[in-house]
């Protein structure tokens, strides 16, 4: 029996998809360790408590809302202090999060505050007596490591998308908690959070990613990629380093070794050669489509569905066909 504290991520008062993944993962871990309660902790401005209640549907027994006006933005100092405080007072065996940018920022701080053992970006975890055995990709995803983690508590983050959020309804009790450290006293202050493209899901949440490479020739031609993303409706837009170096897309869109690691249901590579550093960020995608005019391009070695052709001809045709399929 082990009680688990799950960090449920919110941004600007809205729960993120990673919040449901964290609670689902915590539920699985609690069940694997002989049952136990999942306590989900959420930070946000006033009103986040009402939204957090739905975490009960994903297996949370208790939902702890920490409301403060400062939590309209992230405040990692007071958030990590509050999570650590709660983990201590609650005697939690595990503290679970998801390795999104925010999760990666918070979790190691919590571990250090607790003096806890830590595992990050985990793809699966097994309770093994007093120890936890986790698997985690390293070396740019080219090696899968199995790690033995001992000590209580243990803090761990799951790779985004490694756990599929699933409903496992519980009657969640609602609690509220005051920040354990005054957010107004934090030394690092988020002055502003600017949202990227509106109306399209972001790379961490999208089940489909359409990515463009240098084969698009110039920034304006990214419209082809955006149009295809819009035709799917639930797709995000990514890019190669060649593209972000040119400034056609922001660095935050870059996929690969030095960019984001993604595992969508579908990855469409448009005018991308498939350099080893790019593949490092997307090789775990479920299905891969590649469109490239060079049939020798390395991307075709890993593409489930390759089309040899000119992106300026193939992509508009695909966009039209996807639209037609969606409407039929």
């Amino acid at each position: 029996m082990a009680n688990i504290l799950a960090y449920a991520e919110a941004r600007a008062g809205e729960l993120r998809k990673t919040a449901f993944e964290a609670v689902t993962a915590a539920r699985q871990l609690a069940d694997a360790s002989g049952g136990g309660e999942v306590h989900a902790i959420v930070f946000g401005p006033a009103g986040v408590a009402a939204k957090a209640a739905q975490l009960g549907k994903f297996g949370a027994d208790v939902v702890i809302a920490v409301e403060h006006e400062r939590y309209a933005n992230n405040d990692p100092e007071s958030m990590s202090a509050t999570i650590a405080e709660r983990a201590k007072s609650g005697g939690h065996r595990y503290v679970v999060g998801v390795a999104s940018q925010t999760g990666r920022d918070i979790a190691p701080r919590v571990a250090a505050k607790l003096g806890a053992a830590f595992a990050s970006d985990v793809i699966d975890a097994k309770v093994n007596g007093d120890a936890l055995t986790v698997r985690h990709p390293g070396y740019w995803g080219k090696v899968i490591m199995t790690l033995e983690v001992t000590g209580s508590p243990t803090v761990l983050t799951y790779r985004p998308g490694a756990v599929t959020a699933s409903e496992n309804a519980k009657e969640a009790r609602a609690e509220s908690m005051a920040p354990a450290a005054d957010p107004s006293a934090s030394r690092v202050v988020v002055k502003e959070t600017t949202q990227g493209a509106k109306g399209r899901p972001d790379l961490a949440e999208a089940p489909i990613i359409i990515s463009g490479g240098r084969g698009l020739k110039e920034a304006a031609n990214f419209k082809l990629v955006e149009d295809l993303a819009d035709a799917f409706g639930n797709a995000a837009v990514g890019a190669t380093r060649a593209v972000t170096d040119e400034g056609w897309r922001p660095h935050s869109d870059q996929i690969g070794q030095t960019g984001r690691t993604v595992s969508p249901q579908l990855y469409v590579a448009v005018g991308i050669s498939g350099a080893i550093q790019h593949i490092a960020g997307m090789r775990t995608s479920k299905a891969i489509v590649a469109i490239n005019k060079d049939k020798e391009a390395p991307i075709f070695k890993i593409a489930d569905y390759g089309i040899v052709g000119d992106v300026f001809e193939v992509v508009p045709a695909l966009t039209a066909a996807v639209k037609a399929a969606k409407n039929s």
Partner: protein
Amino acid sequence: MKIAVCIKRAPDSETRFRIAASGTGIDEAGVKFDISDFDSYAVEYALQVTEKGGGEVVVISVGTDASQETLRKALSMGAASGVLLKTDGPVFDSMAVARALADELQGGGYDLVLFGKVAADTAAGAVGAMTAELLGLPCVNSVSKLDLADGRGTARRDLEGAAETVEFPLPAVVSIDEGIARPRYPSLKGIMAAKKKPLESKPAQLGDVRVKIAKMELPADRPPGRIIGEGAAAVPELVRLLQDEAKVL
């Protein structure tokens, strides 16, 4: 300004990995090693700051004797001195590495301590924030733009589909993302000068190590690629496969 950069020895990304016979590490035969990607961006950024505003860059690494070469590379880029915190083998416990680094950094009078946002091998992205906690310093992670002035920093952090602008006082810990600076190649003069720069070596104070490597394996191969056709004529077949086989449409 006195800047410390924590750097790690890591294999080159072009490497084709083989697993060592022990099953708990990579086979290092024939593998080229260098400064881990993001750490080299941090070194470059630190050098640019001190070249413009004065001060010095100290590089610190936790690792085996082989990491001397990694530190020497940073010295040849322009860092003033290096410290090797010696271990017997690789360490996969982020907290233990953070303890060793904090022990060395404590009392060093650094205005800024830089990390890479994530190391190439462990892919943990944890050591920077943990070290900051142990030192009680403010910490900003995954920074793609950083301005320093009047004892304060302003940084940009990319989130998924959003970005944060944050402000903080120095001294502070910052972990570096790509985009901040492209690392220089050491000049011949730099390489010669590095041979005479101080490189200290002492045992790492790791403390209790609670994360141990049990196994390393190569990931399952993807099924071999398949070309389904040429040009726009292949689109109907693609759409059919996306509907019937991949079930994403």
